[in-house]
């Protein structure tokens, strides 16, 4: 289980290779990378800055991962979230989940992303031609997270 909050870029291939190194019991690794886009709410984004709540962030991510591990039989989980200033095209977040079978790996990976979007204390501020703006929380993210409490 690896949880990291960092300024630096991450390497998806290296993280997934680290998960499977020396193991022969993993049948499935589902992973997700979220990237900074050049467009949001219909206007161009030149850059963004990610702020977080040091201390709480790591706790909140660990709690999400624990919750995922209690719902599915997982073999390993990695979550990495970047903070600081990022440009369009830069990777922001990585979630990788290893399991015996694909169903649980996919479900847990999507669950962690959905909860991260509503539970982990990160905030994005975008730089646009009209100046800076804080990204507003999206109702669709609340809806995505709520799916997991109905089932």
């Amino acid at each position: 289980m690896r949880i990291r909050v960092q300024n630096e870029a991450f390497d998806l291939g290296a993280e997934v290779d680290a998960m499977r190194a020396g193991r022969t019991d993993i049948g499935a690794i589902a992973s997700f990378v979220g990237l900074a886009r050049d467009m949001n709410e219909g206007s161009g984004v030149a850059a963004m800055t990610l702020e977080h709540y040091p201390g709480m962030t790591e706790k909140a991510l660990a709690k999400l991962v624990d919750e995922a591990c209690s719902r599915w039989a997982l073999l390993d989980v990695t979550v990495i979230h970047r903070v600081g200033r990022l440009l369009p095209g830069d990777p922001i977040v990585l979630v990788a989940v290893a399991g015996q079978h694909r169903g649980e790996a996919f479900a847990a990976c999507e669950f962690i992303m959905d909860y991260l979007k509503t539970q982990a204390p990160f905030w994005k501020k975008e730089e646009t031609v009209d100046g800076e703006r804080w990204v507003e929380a999206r109702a669709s993210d609340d809806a995505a997270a709520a799916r997991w409490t109905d089932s």
Partner: protein
Amino acid sequence: MTLRILYFARLRERFGLAEETLDFSGATAADLVRQLQARGGVWAENLAAGRTFRVAVNQEIVALDAPLPDHAEVAIFPPVTGG
């Protein structure tokens, strides 16, 4: 009791304050919010009843009726937008 209050993101910018230590005589997160609203100006505006914000106590998001223990670290911030 004494509380350490942290502000993040848009609220940090609006209040012009990242952190403060506060004497608090209430009981719950709602009491603290009322005490901060009473400062008027940006405080009244951004913590008004209709405005959306979150409160964390000792790094866990709580509901407004949550009790605040002495020396708690309380954070007030907008809905999160990471990932």
